[in-house]
């Protein structure tokens, strides 16, 4: 994906390519549809239901947003690695894709105020003595490639741990279950549910690595659209609709989300 970034920068620099056009809320209203990129391989944020259709917290938020906007929502499945190119090249209008707000990413795209949060936790065998990041030194640690926990642990541990990167979340959980790694950093909610269902593996949550607030993501320089998205998040946070969707998928109280 890094190579793609350079290629795109090269094409733009040569004047061969035009960046996707800025959109205002009026443009979207007159089009009558909004293309929303969602993940469908990170349950319960985005997954496929028993009829193999997109479902999850992000999908419900996208549909709620469509209701308030009064346009048709076209869901476009994206993956963690390809969601940024999908947005930047205009294949989707916005992302509601559990995209963590970081200064690094904000150089390329804009975020709404947080509409959800994801808790990242470290999991390992019950017998292992792991209570903080430095305890992971010398261990084989599994992470999904390019995710925030990958960046965080790589910066914190460098070469003192053997960080093994997997293609998706399911492979990362499986790597710990089958003993290919000693610990993993993954979504707390899903990890607890998964390992509690399989007590014979003797795996448990060790500590919470970080709580990452996520924003609805849009292309840069679209103040007008961002203002509407912020208003939508603010309004549905206050009237309890976001909290209701949260409880439906996570069976817990809506987390306190910071704002900016």
């Amino acid at each position, binding site marked *: 994906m890094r190579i793609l970034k350079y290629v795109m920068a090269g094409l733009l620099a040569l004047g061969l390519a*035009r*960046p996707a056009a800025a959109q205002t809320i009026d443009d979207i209203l007159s089009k009558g549809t909004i293309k929303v990129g969602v993940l469908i391989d990170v349950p319960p944020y985005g997954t496929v239901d028993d009829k193999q259709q997109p479902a999850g917290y992000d999908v419900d938020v996208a549909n709620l947003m469509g209701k308030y906007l009064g346009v048709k929502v076209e869901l*476009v499945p994206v993956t963690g690695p390809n969601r940024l190119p999908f947005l930047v090249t205009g294949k989707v209008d916005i992302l509601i894709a559990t995209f963590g707000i970081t200064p690094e990413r904000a150089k390329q795209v804009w975020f709404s105020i947080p509409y959800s949060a994801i808790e990242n936790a470290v999991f390992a065998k019950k017998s292992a003595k792991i209570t903080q990041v430095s305890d992971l030194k010398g261990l084989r640690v599994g992470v999904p490639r390019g995710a925030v926990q990958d960046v965080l642990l790589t910066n914190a541990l460098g070469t003192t741990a053997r960080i093994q990167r997997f293609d998706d979340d399911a492979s990362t959980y499986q790597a710990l279950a089958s003993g290919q790694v000693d610990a993993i950093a993954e979504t707390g909610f899903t990890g607890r549910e998964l390992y509690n269902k399989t007590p014979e593996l003797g795996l448990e949550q060790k500590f919470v690595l970080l709580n990452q607030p996520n924003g609805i993501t849009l292309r840069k320089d679209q103040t007008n659209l961002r203002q509407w998205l912020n208003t939508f998040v603010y309004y549905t946070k206050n009237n309890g609709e976001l909290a209701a969707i949260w409880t439906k998928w996570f069976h817990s109280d809506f987390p306190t989300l910071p704002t900016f």
Partner: protein
Amino acid sequence: MRALNSGDFLFLVLAARWTILLSLSAFVGGGLIGIVIALLRTSSNTAARAAAIAYIQLFQGTPLLLQLFLVFFGSDLLGLALGPWVSATLGLSLNAGAFLGEIWRGAIQSVPKAQSEAAMALGLHHLPRMRHVVLPQALRIATAPTVGFLVNLVKSTSLAAVIGFVELTRAAQLLNNATFRPFTVFFTVAVLYFLLCWPLTIASRRLERRLAVATQR
């Protein structure tokens, strides 16, 4: 997290349709490009040979994954906006064209030179010489490596998953991430790929035997 249901297995079987369709269209597209490349590569014109070599080097020397990415996202930056289906077909065809061109070039060149010379002595020009003398013999030589490549192409279609194309492999990843049943899901997918590739190998062996009889010397 949910359990696997029978609909999920149907979902995989239906996703295999896209793998088959994508393989077929990439084979047709790649075949057409491959014929042109093989003919250019074996032509007596230096510029034509150089162009064919450059094309082959470009597509054999870069990863297919990157080629698919460039066609899919690059087309947007150029204002063309090709969808995943067109991008995947185009990317795979361009790539397959380079490999098939090289396979067929080898087949054409392995037909003994004397055959060409004899045809020339009989007064046949380049095209009829190719069509009636060289290509029929090259076809037999090319069958096995072509099918070998086709089997590979079927499996290469899984790379289309990176541009959001839900074929067999991507469908399996989605189900695995929803149900956390990697062994059941990926075993099923392996069986489906095998069922797609095995008949190809059998057909290739039959075809080889038939062509061997037809062109016995």
